[in-house]
């Protein structure tokens, strides 16, 4: 077989491999839905974050608008501080918005639900570095069961 024919076949092989890599990179893996340069950061303090993890999604009405960038413990208040990276195409949430930690399904992963608040002339729009004050802690199943049993015992 001539070198030219071999070269064509090898070229086709390499092209196929590159196509496979592109499929894996674009369609299978998440290549950062929120590009880090096109996002802004919001902070929130929770009482309890439950099973929330870094890279957990932030959703508004089920639509992913950002991800959890980092989780740290405030060394003075002993409260978890969650950093959210929100896609800058969603940049007009009012400061009255509230966050709650929710679970998708009975056994699913935990995510942050963002509930946009009302807007009037005294309410400012959240910008990079702002804190969201109104947060609801994650529901811990053991505490819930404990409360239930305690109430039953009182009756």
């Amino acid at each position, binding site marked *: 077989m001539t*070198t030219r024919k071999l070269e064509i076949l*090898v070229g086709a092989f390499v092209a196929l*491999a590159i196509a*496979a890599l592109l499929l*894996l*990179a674009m369609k*299978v*893996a*998440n290549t950062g839905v929120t590009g880090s340069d096109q996002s802004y950061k919001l902070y929130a303090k929770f009482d309890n974050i439950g099973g929330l993890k870094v890279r957990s999604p932030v959703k508004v009405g089920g639509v992913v608008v950002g991800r959890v960038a980092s989780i740290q413990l405030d060394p003075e208040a002993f409260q978890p501080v969650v950093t959210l990276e929100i896609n800058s195409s969603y940049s007009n949430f009012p400061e009255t918005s509230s966050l709650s930690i929710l679970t998708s399904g009975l*056994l699913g992963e935990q995510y942050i639900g963002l509930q946009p608040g009302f807007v009037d002339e005294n309410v400012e729009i959240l910008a990079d570095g702002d804190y969201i004050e109104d947060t609801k802690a994650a529901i811990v199943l053991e505490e819930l069961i404990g409360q239930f049993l305690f109430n039953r015992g009182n009756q």
Partner: protein
Amino acid sequence: MLDKLQQLGAATIASVQGFGRAALMVFGALWGRPRFVKAWPLYIKQFYVVGVLSLLIIVVSGLFIGMVLALQGYTVLSKFGAEQMLGPLVALSLLRELGPVVTALLFAGRAGSALTAEIGLMKATEQLSGMEMMAVDPLRRVIAPRFWAGVVCMPLLALIFNAVGILGGHLVGVDWLGVDAGGYWSAMQANVDLQEDVLNGVIKSMVFAFLVTVIALHKGFDAVPTSEGISQATTQTVVTASLAVLGFDFVLTAVMFGG
């Protein structure tokens, strides 16, 4: 007692010498600037033999392994009502484990054994000594193109294996068993990370490519130059390469995903 001890010592010395000769062979083949331009036809021939001709077995195996994974995964996942996780199951098991490992095993059987037999026969028919007579370095003319072909082609084959396997899983999971197509892809995208999973899989297959190629070339280059010796060397290539791949796979998995 002393005889046993002597046997143990002899076996240890023989295996260490084997490692040494393999290292010398690779060093000799790669020492100096690779003459990609001058030896281009040699390289392209080996890329064809090692890479393109292995494509069929890789594509067919990848397709069937993806299909079987989807079928087996579905029966278990549907008991928990978690059919949506079929995509991540197929993708993660292929990208992290099955893609690199099965490709390496198939590659050892398909291309590795052929390399050993070819080089062993070259040695038995004194072609290698003939080259030395003509002041052509057989390490650089025979070993180097095959080494580079193996090391470059196997990660590419593993990528193709992964992609075809995921499409095979789609074929069974979505088109036959009725998992939602959007759920298959979106759950996969939510759970597969480009660096953590795809890149680590590629690194794994690079390590396996080096292992399998060096073992195959060394066994051929070191073969006893008789027909029996060549057949033994070919068998040893497949056995040693498979064991090395599985052993290193455990170590790499522990380092990459264990912590």
